[in-house]
């Protein structure tokens, strides 16, 4: 296994981690602050991808598509919250799980109805297409670097938002002690809607950027959703910092694991077994990781909850 290949896979893992981070950030906040399990979050990611693909088709500009998707997704998220999800805050987790599960299937069908069942094309814009040599002799796709760049930007933006602004303070307080924030006389409903919208926008950004790399098709959100849940469980519910760390870990583990494990196994096991066990184990790897983390730190790496 060449070192350069390993490096490339690690970078891919970080880039994948960026997607996970963008999706899980909203998820962890919604669960941490509103105590709501939202299985439909993956659908917001999917919608983002579809908005992006459509806008690219309309405007011809990827950048424009990305910029326009943000308010669209914000709006979608907020409308969804007001119409459907707001009523679920008071309900127990079971109701939330079932209701949002229904929403996943609803959105998948909606997307099939509007756009059809085949994958949408989302061509990479010229300037992003192509490679750049990050180390001499190691070409790496520009677009993936851009994704990592966007990820860093968003992380910084969130950091500033959460630690330096008033809304951020409320978000932090809400994540660590929900009842207290209500007692502070803040307009809780508005805060919730904003948090939800923010999460939706972040997921949508991931969706737009994932479009050219992964397939834009119905059901694309589910795989990411589960991994996002793994991320927030590992990172600690309600914690953005945890989401950052965990998404990189999960992203790298998943990507590097999948590509190296089958080969690694051939070194210790007979080829037949390795060929069967390899992919199987690789897909289970991330859950084994989650179990291991939970075993030592049941609250995740950076739990935000204190009350």
């Amino acid at each position, binding site marked *: 296994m060449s070192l350069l290949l390993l490096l490339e896979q690690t970078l891919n893992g970080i880039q994948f981690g960026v997607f996970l981070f963008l999706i899980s950030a909203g998820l962890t906040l919604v669960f941490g602050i509103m105590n709501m*399990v939202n299985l439909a979050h993956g659908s917001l990611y999917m919608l983002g991808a579809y908005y992006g693909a459509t806008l690219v088709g309309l405007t011809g500009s990827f950048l424009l598509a990305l910029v326009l998707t943000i308010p669209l997704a914000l709006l979608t998220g907020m409308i969804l919250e007001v119409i459907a999800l707001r009523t679920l805050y008071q309900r127990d*987790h079971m109701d939330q799980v079932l209701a949002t599960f*229904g929403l996943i299937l609803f959105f998948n069908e909606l997307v*099939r109805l509007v756009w059809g069942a085949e994958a949408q094309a989302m061509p990479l814009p010229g300037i992003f297409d192509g490679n750049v040599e990050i180390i001499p002799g190691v070409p790496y796709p520009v677009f993936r670097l851009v994704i990592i760049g966007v990820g860093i930007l968003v992380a910084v933006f969130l950091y500033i938002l959460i630690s330096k602004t008033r809304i951020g303070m409320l978000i932090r307080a809400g994540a660590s002690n929900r009842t207290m924030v209500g007692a502070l006389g803040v307009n809780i409903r508005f805060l919730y809607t904003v948090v939800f919208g923010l999460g939706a926008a972040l997921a949508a950004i991931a969706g737009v950027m994932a479009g050219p790399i992964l397939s834009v098709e119905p059901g694309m959100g589910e795989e990411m959703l589960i991994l996002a849940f793994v991320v927030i469980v590992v990172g600690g519910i309600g914690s953005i910092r945890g989401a950052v760390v965990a998404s990189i870990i999960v992203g790298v583990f998943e990507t590097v694991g999948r590509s190296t494990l089958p080969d690694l196994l051939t070194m210790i096991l007979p080829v037949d077994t390795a060929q*069967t066990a390899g992919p199987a184990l690789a897909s289970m790897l991330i859950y084994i990781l989650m179990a291991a983390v939970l075993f030592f730190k*049941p609250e995740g790496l950076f739990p935000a909850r204190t009350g």
Partner: protein
Amino acid sequence: MLNKTKLGFLVVLFGLLIFLPPFFEAIEEPFYLSLASRVLIFAIAAISLDLILGYGGLISFGHAAYLGLGAYAVAILNFYDIENGWLQLIVAIVGSGIVAAFIGSISLRTGGLYFIMITLAFTQMLYFLGISLEEYGGDDGINTARSFFGDWIDLDDNSTLYYVILFFLALCTFLSWRLVNSRFGMVIRGSHSNEARMEAIGYPVFRYRLVAFVISGAMCGVAGFLLANLTEFVTPEFMRWTRSGEIMIMVLLGGMGTVFGPILGAAAYLLLEDVLATVTQHWWIIFGPMLLIIILFAKKGLWGILPGKEDMSDD
């Protein structure tokens, strides 16, 4: 005891179910027999889930896995030319039970979102395992013959298969009914109501939940066994986590924490799926919001809207 209205309803229901095969034959619609068989199989799966979800309050995404395990027990043994139905059934039950014991021993130590995630994770793992086992069809799935139970029960006859399924449904319904009202059942229900209190009065809750988990998983394995016989084809898709979600919806629709609710729920869901699919293949666009409305306003499910007062401890 059951109040008169509901008892009456039950008699009518099972009476109807018994007469379905000759009826479908008479009107020459064999497809409906297959649909009815499917409904009954998922009713068993829903009953098994209701034990830990409706009564126990444990939101487990694991049942697709047990369905798959039971089905693969048939398919894999069949692959090795072991067609003996009794053996396949035992492997389905014991296999699902053992896996449930393993998953439960880990996941039941957690709660809340962590519990949900861990059960989901295990189901995913089994799904991926199924896909990667090329030997048994992998992604494409594997065909299987129906189980062999001797000359006196010929499962290749669809009506016979239907009656066998109906028998298991009646058995599981009855067992479930006894279970939830027994001392064991009271512990499971009490733990759902107030876990800390249960511990305080002296119950090691984990132990009881684990046993409930195993019983639930084993019963769902039976459903999987029957499903493989019905479809004669098994794929990892049986084990997708969304399948678990569908079974949960069946439990909800029929009425959580009721003995007969799951039957109604399975029927409602699968029939609705069938009916709405003729209207549009995008029937979830209608059903999604419907589900939300049901959750918000009709929590008690179909069983709950039947006339007749009942208190929770009776069924």
